[in-house]
């Protein structure tokens, strides 16, 4: 697997950075290389928050995400801001409730009710980031599901394991049911 | 039998660098007698100092000695003590060292109540650099950087130490050499941060220009101005005008920093 640059965009508090870190952690335990970075430069300003992680079977040299292979936008603002850095033919996943103005371009677009699923099916909107991970992995098949699940469970707060397990599974089902 | 200082002095290091009439030598002797009376193993004693005249003291005594950077005596001492709490750590410095450039370390060591003994050699002036004013130069006094007279207010070192949380605070003078020895001994025996302000004379930098004709006149000023703290309790403010108290000004038992730290973090010994 060549490097995959993943950008998870949302607003502050949605846990996109945590999700990126969990994905990186799970990838490392699955035997891959991963780098999760923070953002500092001029583009880091403004309201849209993002978690970024690069995953690869090869050595990761350049540490940051510039153009994304996978972009997730949980808000309209994040979508508008990050869409121009989505690679041609890349995967773009948006929250169908939050992103009304769907982006157009040469990429595979998935509009899915991620936040609604977290809030209504799982009962906690704060697990939207874990639902996101389920979605991303089901679409990209980056990691074996059980390895991802193991990664999630070892990084979430104690006592929330079942909740997060359900959230991850719900993300997978969102994609499966779409087919 | 005369007291034998030699067993605590490093051979070949005397005469010391201090000026004729500088009282630091008197205090050095008091310090040696105090330590001797406690029967410490010389290998367990660490003396740190900063920069200035009194900070040359560690070079003369046969302990583990550390002459550090200006003002940092206590900060170095803190590292030594935290790394090896078994060591008896003495941090000394002058009034400038301890209350100007090193003031921050002074108050925070008091706040922590770490088991270090601090001696502040207060001679009211920066002696080594040639008589510039310090935080304890009395208002109106002459200094090379206060050629028209000192305009700043001065610190009361003992009040500063008490306010910052030191658990043992005493004042003594070089004139009261036996009392000085006693205060140093009590400070060393105290568990926690102890401070002894030792009033000293700088005849060269301070005395000559501030109406003290001889070193002895400065010692006699100490004799006349010092009032034992117990005696002072029965004296009126008028009687105490122009005087200062000597003795143990503050003493309390409270948890020592390293004991608290080790217990709190469950230090694996």
């Amino acid at each position, binding site marked *: 697997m060549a490097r995959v640059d993943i950008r998870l965009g949302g607003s502050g508090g949605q846990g996109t950075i945590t999700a990126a870190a969990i994905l990186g952690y799970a990838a490392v335990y699955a035997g891959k290389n991963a780098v999760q970075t923070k953002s500092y430069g001029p583009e880091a300003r403004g309201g849209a928050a993002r978690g970024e992680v690069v995953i690869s079977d090869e050595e990761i040299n350049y540490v940051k995400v510039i153009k994304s292979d996978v972009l997730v936008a949980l808000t309209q603002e994040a979508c508008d801001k990050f869409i121009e850095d989505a690679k041609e033919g890349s995967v773009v996943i948006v929250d169908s409730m939050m992103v009304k103005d769907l982006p157009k371009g040469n990429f595979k677009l998935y509009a899915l009710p991620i936040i609604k699923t977290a809030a209504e099916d799982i009962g906690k909107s704060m697990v939207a980031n874990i639902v996101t991970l389920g979605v991303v992995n089901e679409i990209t098949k980056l990691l074996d599901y059980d390895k991802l699940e193991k990664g999630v469970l070892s990084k979430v707060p104690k006592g929330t394991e079942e909740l997060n397990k359900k959230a991850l599974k719900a993300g997978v089902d969102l994609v499966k049911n779409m087919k | 039998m*005369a*007291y034998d200082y030699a067993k605590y002095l490093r051979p070949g290091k005397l005469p010391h660098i201090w000026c004729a009439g500088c009282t*630091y030598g*008197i205090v050095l002797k008091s310090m040696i007698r105090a330590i001797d009376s406690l029967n410490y193993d010389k290998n367990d004693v660490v003396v740190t100092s900063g920069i200035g005249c009194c900070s040359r003291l560690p070079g003369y005594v046969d302990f583990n000695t550390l002459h550090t950077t200006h003002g940092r005596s206590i900060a170095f001492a803190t590292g030594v003590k935290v790394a090896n709490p078994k060591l008896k750590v003495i941090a000394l410095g002058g009034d400038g060292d301890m209350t100007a450039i090193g003031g921050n370390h002074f108050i925070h060591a008091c706040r922590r109540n770490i088991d270090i003994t601090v001696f502040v050699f207060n001679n009211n002036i920066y002696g080594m650099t040639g008589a510039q004013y310090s935080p304890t130069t009395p208002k109106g006094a002459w200094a090379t950087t206060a050629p028209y007279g000192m305009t700043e207010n001065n610190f009361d070192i003992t009040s500063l130490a008490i306010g910052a949380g030191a658990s043992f605070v005493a004042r003594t003078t070089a004139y009261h*050499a036996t009392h000085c020895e006693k205060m140093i001994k009590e400070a060393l025996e105290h568990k926690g941060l102890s401070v002894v302000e030792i009033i000293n004379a700088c005849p060269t930098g301070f005395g000559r220009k501030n109406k003290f004709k001889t*070193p*002895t006149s400065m*010692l006699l000023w100490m004799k006349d101005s010092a009032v034992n703290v117990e005696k002072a309790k029965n004296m009126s403010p008028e009687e105490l005008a122009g005087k200062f108290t000597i003795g143990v000004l503050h003493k309390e038992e409270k948890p020592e920093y390293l004991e608290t730290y080790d217990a709190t973090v469950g230090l694996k010994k």
Partner: protein
Amino acid sequence: MAKAERIEINKKWCKGCEICVELCPTNALEMVDFKVAVKDLEKCIACMQCELRCPDFAIVVYKKEKE
């Protein structure tokens, strides 16, 4: 009357500050060539003020053993 057997002075270390001479209550010490010297051992009452307050470790008073 003298209570001191001898007073040792280390002239190499004495810096001539005169503290000992001026604090001596019996005028037993004096300055000679800017250094302390014993003027009259007989006058010494072994009060030890000079030794105690000599900053330079330059003066040592040996008391007479009690008779």
